C-alpha cells in the first residue's frame, strides 16, 4: 500500500496544479466517486494555497486509511511557518489575515468529513483532513461472506 502514498512539495502557486491532480488520482484509485474526488481535490487546493500565501513553503502528504472497517483518504499539510495564533478564529467563515475572503480553511473543512488543525506560534501548522468512502453493496456482501468464513 506504500505505493499509494503521495507527497507533493509546495513552493509556489504552480504546485497547486499537481497537488490537485495527484489528490484526485489517488481518490479515484481508492474507489471514491467522481464527485468525492472533486471535493477532495478542491479541499487540497485550498490548504495548499494557504501554505503558499501564508508561509511560502510546505508539504502535502496523502495516503489511504483503513479504520473501523471503513476506507478513507487522509491529507496532511505541513509547514514550518510562524503558526496560526488563533486557530479558532482562522476556522471562522470570513476570517482573514491577508485580505482574502477567509474561505480557505472553513471551506476545506466543509468539503471533507474530518478536519483538524494543529498550530502553535513559531512551530508551524499541520492540517489533517479525512474523507471516508461509502462502500457499495458488493463490498459489504464480500465482507459478510468473509466473516462467515
Amino acid at each position, binding site marked *: 500500500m506504500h505505493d499509494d502514498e503521495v507527497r507533493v512539495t509546495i513552493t509556489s*502557486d*504552480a504546485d*497547486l*496544479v499537481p497537488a*490537485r*491532480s495527484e489528490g*484526485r488520482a489517488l481518490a479515484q484509485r481508492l474507489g471514491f466517486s*467522481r*464527485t468525492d*474526488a*472533486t*471535493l477532495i*481535490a*478542491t479541499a487540497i*487546493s*485550498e490548504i495548499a*494555497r494557504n501554505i503558499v500565501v501564508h508561509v511560502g513553503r510546505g508539504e502535502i502528504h496523502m495516503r489511504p486509511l483503513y479504520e473501523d472497517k471503513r476506507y478513507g483518504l487522509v491529507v496532511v499539510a505541513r509547514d514550518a511557518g510562524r503558526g496560526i495564533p488563533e486557530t479558532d478564529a482562522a476556522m471562522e*467563515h470570513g476570517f482573514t489575515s491577508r485580505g*482574502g*475572503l477567509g*474561505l*480557505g480553511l472553513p*471551506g476545506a473543512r*466543509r*468539503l471533507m468529513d474530518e478536519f483538524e488543525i494543529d498550530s502553535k506560534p513559531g512551530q508551524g501548522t499541520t492540517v489533517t483532513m479525512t474523507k471516508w468512502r461509502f462502500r457499495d453493496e458488493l463490498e459489504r456482501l464480500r465482507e459478510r461472506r468473509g466473516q462467515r468464513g
Partner: protein
Amino acid sequence: MSVTILRQGDYLVASIQSDLTDAEVLELRDQLSERVGLYRARGIVVDVTALDVIDSFVARSLGSIAVTARLRGADTVIVGIQPDVAIAMVQFDLNLEPLITALDLDEARRLLDGRTRGDGEDAR
C-alpha cells in the same frame, strides 16, 4: 497560457484548455479586460469545461473578471461548470452572485444577445 481567446462578432470567447495556475487565472483576467477595450466587445464567454476544480480563488477570480468587464461595458457569462464541480462550489458556500452562468456556448450567446438588446431598451 492554456487559454485561447477568440473574437466572435461582438463577443470574446475564452476557452480554458486545462487546469490553470493562480498566475494564469490572473493573466486571463487582465487579457480579457484589455481585449474588451481593444475589440469593443459587448460580451465575454468563459468556458470552464476543462476545469475539474474550481476553488475559492478561481471562483473569486471569475467574479472579478465579470466585475472588471462590467466596468468596461461588457457582460460575462461562465459556461461549462461540471456537475461535480458545481456540487463542490455549493458545499463550499461561495458567493457566486456576480456570476451569470449558462450550460453551453449557444445558450451563453442567446443570453448575451438578450442582455445587449435589453441595454438598448433601457437607454431609449
